């Protein structure tokens, strides 16, 4: 009996461990759903810990490719890890399906036939959201986000469409990653002059930020909006009522009402006793994309070019809705605006608006888009 091997890379230790767990769970759930078989072959999944360190990630992926001889690699949470692996994977021409890392460049300037991504790219959800914010009546905003690529890209996307629509960014603050206390930043925000605060944080920082936002009396004074990491399903419970009313944008929340989602949420909860998140869903979709490609090829993975083509061509219904790749192997999917609400006693990210079939290039052509300066190099230039 033939075996097809898939490597899964995620951080199992350190601050990102909990995301890594979601990534493994989502993948495993799908593999279990198909009985561990693809096109008649046994699907073997090998998990490796990237430790969220680029050079460790590179060593691990070398093990997967050279020592274990995997046919696909999925996973990857940190963008810096993804960047570190990219050249090696392109050289080896083994398909890499990134489930979480959102760095824009991976599927834009650095796009390659064997590099795929299943979650939104950094600014993908921000583009429609920025325009929408303006349409909601916000004219002037202040932005705050962690001072690294993720923060720059997610705020950048909002800032671009928001300002193009006629809005104004009056201040942008980028506290360094790992900031213990947001008090000095919160108390420096020019909220008197703004209609809303745009914030992008993740994990423990998001919890801290949202709590401190309330502590300093800002909640209720000025709306807080952002991208989904700020209140994702993983941390929402910890944020408690402080998060109520926050509006964010993303392609997924467990509260989505799509045909595929209810069953997915149910299965996931049964198996792992908690709600799925955009991390586990992204990884679930990774598994499904890989599976679909194997099926399309009838299990024959001998020609790398064909494998890449098969992957690029997959399209299916996923928990988030219809899923397919664009010409640069990044997903085209619906984006939502969510609002944190309490439903049946639980906090959920309730969809309040849908933007259909959004690609990473939004309304631009890929060429025009990539000719613009990347968001991560604009950072502080939005506020005038």
């Amino acid at each position: 009996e033939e075996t097809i091997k898939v490597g899964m890379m995620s951080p199992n230790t350190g601050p990102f461990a909990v995301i890594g767990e979601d990534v493994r769970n989502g993948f495993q759930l799908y593999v279990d759903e198909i009985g561990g078989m693809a096109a008649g072959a046994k699907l073997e999944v090998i998990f490796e810990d990237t430790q969220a360190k680029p050079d460790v990630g590179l060593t691990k992926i070398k093990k997967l490719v050279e020592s274990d001889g995997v046919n696909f690699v999925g996973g990857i949470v940190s963008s810096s890890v993804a960047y570190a692996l990219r050249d090696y994977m392109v050289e080896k021409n083994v398909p890499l399906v990134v489930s979480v890392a959102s760095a824009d460049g991976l599927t834009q300037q650095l796009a390659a036939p064997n590099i795929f991504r299943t979650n939104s790219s950094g600014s993908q959800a921000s583009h429609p959201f920025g325009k929408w914010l303006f349409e909601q009546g916000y004219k002037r905003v202040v932005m705050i986000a962690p001072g690294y690529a993720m923060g720059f890209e997610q705020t950048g996307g909002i800032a671009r469409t928001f300002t193009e629509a006629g809005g104004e960014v009056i201040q942008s603050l980028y506290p360094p990653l790992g900031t213990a206390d947001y008090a000095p930043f919160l108390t420096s925000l020019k909220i008197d002059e703004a209609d809303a605060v745009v914030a992008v944080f993740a994990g423990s920082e998001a919890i801290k930020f949202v709590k401190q936002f309330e502590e300093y009396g800002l909640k209720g004074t000025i709306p807080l909006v952002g991208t989904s990491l700020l209140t994702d399903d993983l941390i929402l419970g910890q944020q408690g009522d402080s998060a109520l009313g926050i509006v964010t944008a993303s392609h997924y929340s467990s509260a989505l009402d799509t045909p595929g989602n209810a069953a997915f949420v149910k299965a996931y909860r049964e198996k792992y006793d908690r709600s799925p998140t955009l991390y586990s869903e992204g990884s679930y979709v990774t598994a499904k994309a890989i599976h679909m490609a194997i099926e399309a090829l009838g299990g024959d993975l001998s020609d790398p070019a064909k494998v890449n083509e098969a992957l690029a061509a997959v399209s299916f219904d996923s928990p988030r809705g219809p899923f397919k790749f664009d010409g640069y192997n990044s997903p085209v999917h619906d984006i939502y605006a969510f609002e944190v609400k309490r439903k049946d006693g639980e906090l959920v990210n309730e969809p309040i608006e849908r933007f259909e079939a959004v690609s990473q290039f939004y309304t631009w052509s890929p060429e025009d888009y990539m000719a613009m300066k990347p968001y991560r190099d604009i950072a502080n230039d939005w506020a005038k």
Partner: protein
Amino acid sequence: MAFYTIQILNGLSLAMLLFLIASGLSVIFGLMRIINLAHGSFYLLGGYFGLSVLNQTGNFWLAILVAAAIVAAIGMVLQRVLLERVHGNELGQVLMSFGVLLVISDLALWFWGGLPQTLDRPDFLDGALRFAGLFFPKYRVALIVCGFAVALAIWLIIERTRIGAVIRAGVDDAEMVRAIGFDIKMVFLLVFGAGAALAGAAGVLGGAMLGIYPGADFEVVLQAFAVVVIGGLGSLRGAFVGSLLIGFSDTIGKALLPEFAMFTIFVPMVAMLVIRPEGLFGRA
């Protein structure tokens, strides 16, 4: 004006949190010269144990007490079983306590999961104080008061019981301290336990302000060491002033020069050490 008032209060609250974390270390490291990187683990464990107690009972004060007690016990076992064996071997202490830090953080991840957790504060400390058009969280006010109280208490204990002198003597020449009749091992053990208890309590207090999550141990231990060293080894006053300095330089720096936020702790730290190579109140 209001801007500066609030930043000063911010700085003060961060400083007092730092001091609460560093006070235990100031005793263990400053006085006894035991390099215990697992101090961060004590903080982490304190936070998690406090969380568990809080989830069971809802009593914040009980959480502090229980966390301090459990962590003190763990600390004493660690000292007796492990750290004592590398007495006087600084590099050995670094490695051994780092090993302990790894084990504890990994087991904590296993047991409590990787999700960042927050500790609920007592109701009367929720919300904010309003004065002169300013808005400042009550919990932070309590933290500031608490920091000053702990500083005073430790200072009094050391002065009153002369235990400080015995400990310092023990660091200079443990054998001779035994020769004047002190069971130096017991003294060290108790002091270590007290330092651990302080860290455990700080875990609950800090957890309620910043949350408790994997990796907090490492962050905390670095800051605590920095504070104690900048203040000058063996000087509680130093640790206190060191906390204030770092708290203020960090807060004010970030408020005034947000673009240089990554440098607001370390650049002042280097500057201080270059100007005062033995810390603010250090006596070598």
